[in-house]
């Protein structure tokens, strides 16, 4: 049974109070959270060790400038765990990175929340998202989608965090502005908050109340997947889709899963030799440059699509407006389905390409 901490304060305020308590009482070495950078409304992720700096913390701000899971995997190891407040998709990507030996789950007290989604870049950058916030929180209170969230968020089915030590309950909490409910799932989170001043009770996060939202999101996902319509268009469709790719590799750089130290597509072997283009010309009559943009995306799909958590960062950064995220999620779900794999589900579950079963896929290779 999980424990519930309840505080008579707004959800964000209550969470900041807990973070302060953890830091001041030396339960954690640091706090990783979103924070106002300059007080002018700009914000950024920061690793904080000085409790006073938590005054500016806005851990629940619905904006993901970078994928936090990717960022915390690059933080230095500290004496005690770092309390990290990240959204469910960031947590899932961190779990995927841990499986790739790029981080340790024990280094963090993972705090997440039932997520109502985050804003797209363009919407937030215009006015720092301030105008959108009231409507957003109203929607979260009702447990429905705000109309301004990202496409990938509006079709995300994993808004209840898994593997978190603490879950802050947001979606469908009517008293969001006056009450903060935090569910403690792990023993160490219970031990750390023992002396924390809050009402403690036993209970479990009810999944039932999310059914309607889950159904709506699933419908939206089906719609998005249908809209991109890749299977009917084949190679020509791929060429259409990636004909406008400028080869900036931005989608790869922001991807929380694409973290190979030696990347195929960053090596000099990837850029075709001029002679390759010269040899292709007589056959094709013309060669589109930069070359190999379709190869880049299919190659990346073959390397990591099964681990795609659908955070949507790739679509956000694409300057050519290619729906990269939808394509990767759609293909990723198909691929992961072969191995009954769900990215971010369990730290001990290994990624499909590093393990095998002797008695699987026996239909392949027999002639």
């Amino acid at each position, binding site marked *: 049974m999980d424990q519930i901490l309840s505080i008579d304060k707004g959800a964000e305020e209550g969470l900041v109070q807990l973070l302060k308590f953890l830091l001041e009482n030396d339960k954690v070495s640091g706090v990783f959270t979103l924070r106002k950078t300059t007080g002018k409304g700009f914000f950024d992720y920061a690793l904080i060790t000085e409790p006073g700096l938590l005054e500016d913390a806005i851990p629940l701000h619905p904006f993901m400038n970078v994928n936090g899971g990717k960022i915390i995997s690059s933080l230095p190891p500290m004496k005690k765990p770092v309390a990290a407040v990240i959204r469910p998709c960031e947590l899932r990507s961190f779990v995927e990175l841990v499986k790739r030996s790029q981080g340790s789950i024990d280094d963090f007290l993972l705090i997440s929340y039932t997520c109502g989604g985050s804003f797209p870049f363009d919407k937030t950058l215009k006015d720092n998202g301030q105008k959108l916030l009231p409507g957003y929180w109203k929607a979260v209170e009702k447990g429905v989608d705000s109309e301004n969230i990202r496409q990938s968020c509006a079709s995300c089915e994993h808004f209840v965090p898994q593997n978190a030590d603490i879950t802050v309950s947001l979606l469908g909490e009517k008293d969001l502005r006056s009450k903060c409910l935090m569910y403690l799932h792990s023993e160490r989170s219970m031990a750390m908050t023992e002396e924390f001043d809050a009402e403690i009770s036993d209970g479990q996060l009810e999944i039932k109340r999310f059914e309607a939202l889950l159904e709506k999101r699933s419908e939206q996902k089906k719609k998005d997947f249908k809209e991109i319509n*890749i*299977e*009917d*268009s*084949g*190679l*020509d*469709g*791929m*060429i259409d889709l990636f*004909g406008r790719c400028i080869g900036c590799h931005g989608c790869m750089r922001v991807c929380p899963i694409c973290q190979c130290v030696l990347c*195929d597509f960053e090596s000099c072997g990837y850029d*075709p030799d001029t002679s*390759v*283009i010269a040899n*292709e010309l007589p*056959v*094709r*009559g*013309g*060669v*589109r440059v930069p*070359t*190999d943009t*379709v*190869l880049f995306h*299919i*190659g990346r*799909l*073959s*390397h990591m*699509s*099964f681990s795609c958590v659908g955070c949507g960062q790739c679509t956000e950064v694409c300057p050519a407006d290619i729906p990269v995220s939808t394509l990767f999620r*759609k*293909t990723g779900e*198909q*691929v992961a389905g*072969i*191995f009954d794999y769900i990215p971010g589900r369990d730290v001990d579950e290994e990624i*499909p*390409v590093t393990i*095998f*079963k*002797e008695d*699987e*896929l*026996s239909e*392949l*290779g*027999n*002639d």
Partner: protein
Amino acid sequence: MSKEFKPKIISFLCKWCTYSGADLAGTNRMKYPASILPVRVMCSSRVNPVFMVKSFLHGADGVFVGGCHPGDCHYQSGNYFTRRRFAILTRIFDTLGMESERLKLSWISAAEGVKFVRVTTEFTEEIKSMGENPAKKKVFL
């Protein structure tokens, strides 16, 4: 007279099994189709899926990967990984609506020269019936 279509099939052959199988076919004076363009690899698991995609997009009419039978890998378990990767890549091709039939994986041991000839001949015929790889003539590379 129309020119007969002679497919090109880039073939990644495991040094220990399939490549030796091809050798055996040769020493026994058996014929396998000239469409097979062998690339020797130390293990079928050396084949990065990107190699196969690249061959395909650069105009290979077929891509063939040959390895040891499951359980017989020279490196104990390499071909099991090959098998998973191949399953992943074909699933990606299917999802993207591309012709996964142009990719082939086959287990052929060093003793199976006859099988090598049979499998490569059959695959060549299949590719012939499918026609040229449409990626070959695209301006998009």
